């Protein structure tokens, strides 16, 4: 349904080109939920914004391929892209307060999203908005439809934004850290809501997050990102029981668990790469504990390729040459 191939995005800045994405690959099937995981600067938000076509008419340099149901999204004009945006692909942002217009009522913003793609009267669109608010679990939607965004609580605003993104029943929903700003109890409500709505509409979801727990709960497949590349992708079960890439392993070991006995965490040394000046070899090499196992400084000199074995793919010389130690079970 959606295929991203070798996507690169660069932003010109005063200090030089920032390489936000460096050959990103992603496949998505109908009705599937894929988790896009990574730390800040790993390119997960840039990937989702590129799919939405939000870098058109900016100075960003984009290369590669994004195909959605056979259409090359990168080749589309802004006008044509608009017919996809909202109608076929919906997006939920992290901070609903800044994603909504403060001067318009929540209802009118949802109705507007509907009227852009459907020729209906204002009155009919307002009814659609009320129905949509009811579907996302806003109490008393008839009254709430005339409220302004600031009159909603954080959790309700996120519900309203989900309503706005889903009002045209898109086939693909991109959720960019939709629960990061929320408290855990509210996050749990929103995650339940997203999985319920997805089961109803059978739309595909790309769920961008840095929280592996959220991924385990919601997604079928995981794409782990680092330095603007996909370093590993596999089913949720594979990722948590047999992670291949050293970065994925490091991420799991550094995460505090509620059920963990061990009270010492194992961090990944160093910090994420500077995107202004990426190494020519493996982007993770300088933080990788296994890089020394690979002969001839290959990790430092040669960028590894994404090696696909069945449903599991990883980008690592050590993994490719079977030099990595067997993985320890993390979850399960």
């Amino acid at each position, binding site marked *: 349904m959606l295929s991203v191939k070798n996507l690169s995005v660069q932003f010109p800045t005063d200090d030089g080109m920032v390489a936000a994405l460096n050959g990103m690959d992603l496949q998505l099937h109908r009705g599937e939920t894929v988790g896009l995981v990574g730390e800040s600067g790993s390119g997960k938000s840039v990937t989702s914004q590129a799919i939405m076509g939000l870098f058109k008419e900016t100075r960003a340099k984009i290369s590669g391929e994004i195909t959605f149901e056979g259409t090359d999204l990168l080749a589309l004009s802004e006008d044509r892209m608009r017919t996809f945006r909202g109608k076929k692909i919906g997006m939920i942002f992290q901070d609903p307060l800044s994603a909504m217009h403060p001067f318009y009522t929540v209802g009118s913003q949802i109705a507007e999203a509907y009227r852009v793609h459907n020729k209906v009267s204002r009155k009919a669109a307002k009814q659609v908005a009320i129905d949509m608010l009811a579907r996302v679990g806003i109490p008393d939607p008839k009254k709430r439809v005339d409220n302004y965004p600031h009159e909603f609580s954080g959790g309700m605003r996120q519900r309203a934004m989900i309503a706005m993104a889903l009002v045209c029943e898109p086939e693909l929903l991109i959720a960019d850290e939709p629960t990061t700003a929320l408290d855990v109890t509210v*996050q*749990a409500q929103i995650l339940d809501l997203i999985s319920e709505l997805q089961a109803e509409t059978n739309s595909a979801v790309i769920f961008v997050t840095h929280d592996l727990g959220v991924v*385990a709960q919601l997604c079928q497949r995981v794409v782990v990102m680092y330095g603007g590349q996909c370093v590993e992708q596999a089913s949720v079960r594979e990722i948590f029981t047999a992670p291949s890439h050293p970065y994925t392993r490091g991420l799991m070991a550094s995460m505090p668990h509620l059920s963990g006995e061990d009270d010492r965490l194992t*961090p990944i040394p160093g910090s*994420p790469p500077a995107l202004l000046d990426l190494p020519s070899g493996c982007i993770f090499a300088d933080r990788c504990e296994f890089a020394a196992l690979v002969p001839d400084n290959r990790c430092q000199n040669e960028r590894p390729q994404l090696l696909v074995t069945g449903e599991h793919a990883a980008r690592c010389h050590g993994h490719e040459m079977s030099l990595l130690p067997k993985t320890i079970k993390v979850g399960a």
Partner: protein
Amino acid sequence: MNTPLLEVSELRKHFPIKGAFGRTVGAVKAVDSVSFTLQRGTTLGLVGESGCGKSTTGKVLMRLLDPTSGSIKLDGEEISTFKGKELNAFRRRVQMVFQNPASSLNPRASIGAAIAAPLIEQGIKPPGGVKAKVRDLMDRVGLRPEHANRFPHEFSGGQRQRIGIARALALDPDVVICDEPVSALDVSVQAQVVNLLKDIQRDTGISYIFIAHDLAVVKHMADEVAVMYLGKIMEQGSNEQIFADPQHPYTRALLSAVPSVELDAALTERIRLGGDLPSPSNPPSGCVFRTRCPAYALLPETDRARCADQVPTGEVACHFPSAPLAAVAAHR
């Protein structure tokens, strides 16, 4: 039993709400009758969702805010009434690490100057001189001492938090209040800082008040845990008690809301809280949690009346801790 290092009882912080002509028309009860003790060399975790009063508690303990009423005793000495010189001397013993290291460091001061600032402010001349002390501190928190002349923007988020920790340690305090010290950091870096804080405690016997909303991090850091909701402590106890055998419905709901990476975990209770946090300027009567309590709905009429009339007290602030909860079985 010896005197606890810090003893807080019936602490209240109410912020007045001003109406027309500066008249006080109400109060936001940010902290409402909070009591706990902190033993030397241990960590007390204060957890709760946004708006529960955990940060305000930290600020009052630090005397950045004056308490409305209640007592704070450091080594048996009442400090809530300290002024001027006494207050200044008190600050040598209690220091704070803030959430956002970028906004709590002066961008125009070198980090060496930032770390030395508390020493100079307090007029302390460490043996060997201020410069040597700064070098020691930087070494202690894992920064390279030769970077003392660099400025905050030259450091990554994790390194900046290390600077904040070095500054808090400069005066060799007895207590460091850490207000969400790792929540702005990525997981892999977060683990580095958590380990650093634990190492410092092991080596120096310092005590922490660790304020966080992330339960898993608190589980790794704290010896004692207090769970806050709407300005009150709902439950407090040892780490084991709170995480292995939580009694209060709120604690149980909070723990069950954390997304788990345990894929095959047995059907655990899954409690969802409905609705939003009530306003702290007009909290519910009796038990403040009753409006969202998963047990309240199932209670008989007479018991409900008790929840509405009487404020629950004790280690587990709940009238009916063993009452059944409206739980949903987990599904995957």
